[in-house]
C-alpha cells in the first residue's frame, strides 16, 4: 500500500497511471451525465410549486457541490504538499483551482437563472447559498492571483498553499455567517430547508448528475495535472524521452 502511494507521488508513474484512468472516468461520467440529463429533463415529474423551472437543479446542485469539493481537494493537496513537501500534491492543487472556479461560476449562473422566475431579479442577496458561492469564487480568484503573481514555481506553490489552508479554515465560518445574515431577513431561498420530500424520479437523476460531475472533475483534474507535471518536470529525463523518443538516453 505504501509502495503504491510512494509510486503515485513519483511524477512519471503518476503520468502513466493518470493516462490510463482518464478514459474510464470520462466514459462513466459521460454515461451518468447523459442519463441524468435525459431523465431529469424529460422523465422527472414537474415540481408542484416551480413547474419545469426547477429542472435547472440538475446542473446547479452538482456544480455547487463540485465547487466545494474542488476546494476541499485544493486545500488538502496543498496541505500535503506543504507539510510533506510532495511536489505532485502542489501540481494537483494548481490543477484543481481553475476547475473549481469554473464550477463555482456555473453554480452562480445557474443559480441566478433558477432564481429569476421566483425573485423577479437576476440576483437576490437574501439567498445564503448564492452569496456563499460568490465569496467562494473570490477565494478561488485570490488563490489563482497569488499563484500568478509569484514567478518561482516552488515559492508560488508554498505561498498559495498557506492561503488555501487559511481559506479552508474560513470556509465553514463564511457559510455560517452568511446563513445567519440572511436569516435576519427572511428572503426567498432557492432550496427550501426541509422542504417537501423529493420524489424518487427526481432524486435518481440528481444523484447521477452529482456522481457524473464528480467523475468528470476527476478526469479533467487528472488531465490538467498531467500537463502540470510535464511543465514542472520538463528538464527530467523521462520527459525528454517522451518528447524526443528518437534521442538515445
Amino acid at each position, binding site marked *: 500500500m505504501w509502495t503504491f502511494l510512494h509510486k503515485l507521488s513519483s511524477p512519471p508513474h503518476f503520468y502513466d497511471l493518470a493516462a490510463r484512468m482518464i478514459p474510464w472516468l470520462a466514459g462513466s461520467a459521460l454515461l451518468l451525465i447523459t442519463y441524468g440529463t435525459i431523465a431529469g429533463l424529460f422523465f422527472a415529474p414537474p415540481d408542484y410549486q416551480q413547474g419545469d423551472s426547477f429542472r435547472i437543479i440538475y446542473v446547479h446542485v452538482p456544480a455547487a457541490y463540485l465547487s466545494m469539493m474542488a476546494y476541499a481537494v485544493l486545500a488538502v493537496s496543498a496541505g500535503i504538499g*506543504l507539510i510533506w513537501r510532495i511536489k505532485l500534491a502542489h501540481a494537483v492543487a494548481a490543477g484543481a483551482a481553475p476547475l473549481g472556479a469554473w464550477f463555482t461560476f456555473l453554480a452562480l449562473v445557474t443559480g441566478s437563472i433558477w432564481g429569476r422566475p421566483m425573485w423577479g431579479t437576476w440576483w437576490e442577496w437574501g439567498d445564503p447559498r448564492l452569496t456563499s458561492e460568490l*465569496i467562494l469564487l*473570490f*477565494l478561488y*480568484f*485570490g488563490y489563482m*492571483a*497569488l499563484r500568478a*503573481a*509569484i514567478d*518561482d514555481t516552488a*515559492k508560488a506553490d*508554498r*505561498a498559495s498553499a*498557506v*492561503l488555501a*489552508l*487559511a*481559506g479552508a*479554515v*474560513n470556509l465553514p*465560518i*463564511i457559510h*455560517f*455567517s*452568511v446563513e*445567519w*445574515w440572511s436569516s*435576519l431577513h427572511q428572503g426567498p431561498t432557492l432550496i427550501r430547508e426541509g422542504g417537501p420530500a423529493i420524489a424518487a424520479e427526481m432524486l435518481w437523476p440528481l444523484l447521477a448528475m452529482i456522481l457524473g460531475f464528480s467523475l468528470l472533475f476527476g478526469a479533467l483534474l487528472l488531465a490538467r495535472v498531467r500537463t502540470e507535471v510535464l511543465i514542472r518536470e520538463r528538464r527530467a529525463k523521462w520527459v525528454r524521452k517522451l518528447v524526443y523518443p528518437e534521442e538515445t538516453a
Partner: protein
Amino acid sequence: MNAPHLPRMFDGLVAVIRRDLELAWRRPGDVLNPLFFFAIVSTLFPLAVGPDAEQLALNGPGVLWVAALLAALLSLNSLFLNDYEDGSLEQMLLSPQPLPLLALAKSMSHWLVSGLPLVILSPLIAMSFQMPARATTVMMLTLALGTVSFSLLGSIGAGLTVGLNRGNALLSLLILPLAMPVLIFGARTVSLAAADDAVSAGLYFLGAYCMLALTLAPFATAAALKISNE
C-alpha cells in the same frame, strides 16, 4: 542539553511592539493617514447617497464597518514592507525567538497603531450617522474585536504579498473574502443594537472568531513570511 543563552520568551514580542510604537511615534503620518481615510470614507456615503436621516441611520453601521475594513487594508500593505526592505525581517527570521510570536507582535502593533485609534474615533463618526447611544457601545465593542481580527488576518495576507510588485491590490483580494464573516457579524450586530434587538449572538461570534484568529493566524503569518523571504 541546556542552552542558557536562549532569550526569554516574551522578550521578542515586547521588543517588536515597542520598536514599532517608537517608529509610529516618529512618523505620525503612518497612524493618522488611515484614520483620516476612515473619516473621509465614512463621509463619502452620506454625500453620495443623500442626507435623509432615516436612511443614514439604517446604513450607518454598514458604512462604518466597510470604512474600518478599508482603513485596515490601507495600513496592512506596509506592515512588513519596511522590514523586508531594510533587512530587519531577515534578522527576525533568524532570531531564536519563535517566529509566530514575532508575527503576533507585528499584528498587535498594527492594531495598536491603526485599529485602536479607529475604535476611539468611531463614536464621533457614528454621531454623524444619527446612531442611537445604545448602539454606540455595541459598535465600539464590535469594532474592537473586529479590528483585532482584521489585523491578525491581514498579517497573513501581508506576509504572503511582501516583496511582490503589485502586492497592494492583491492583498485586498486575498483578505476580503476571509474578512467577510467579521464584516457581516460586526455590521449586522450594530444594526440589531440600533433596533433594540438581541446582540449577544453577534458578540459571541466576533469574540470566538477573534480567539480563533489569535491562535491560528500567527502561525500562518510566520509560514508566509518564511516563504516570502526565500
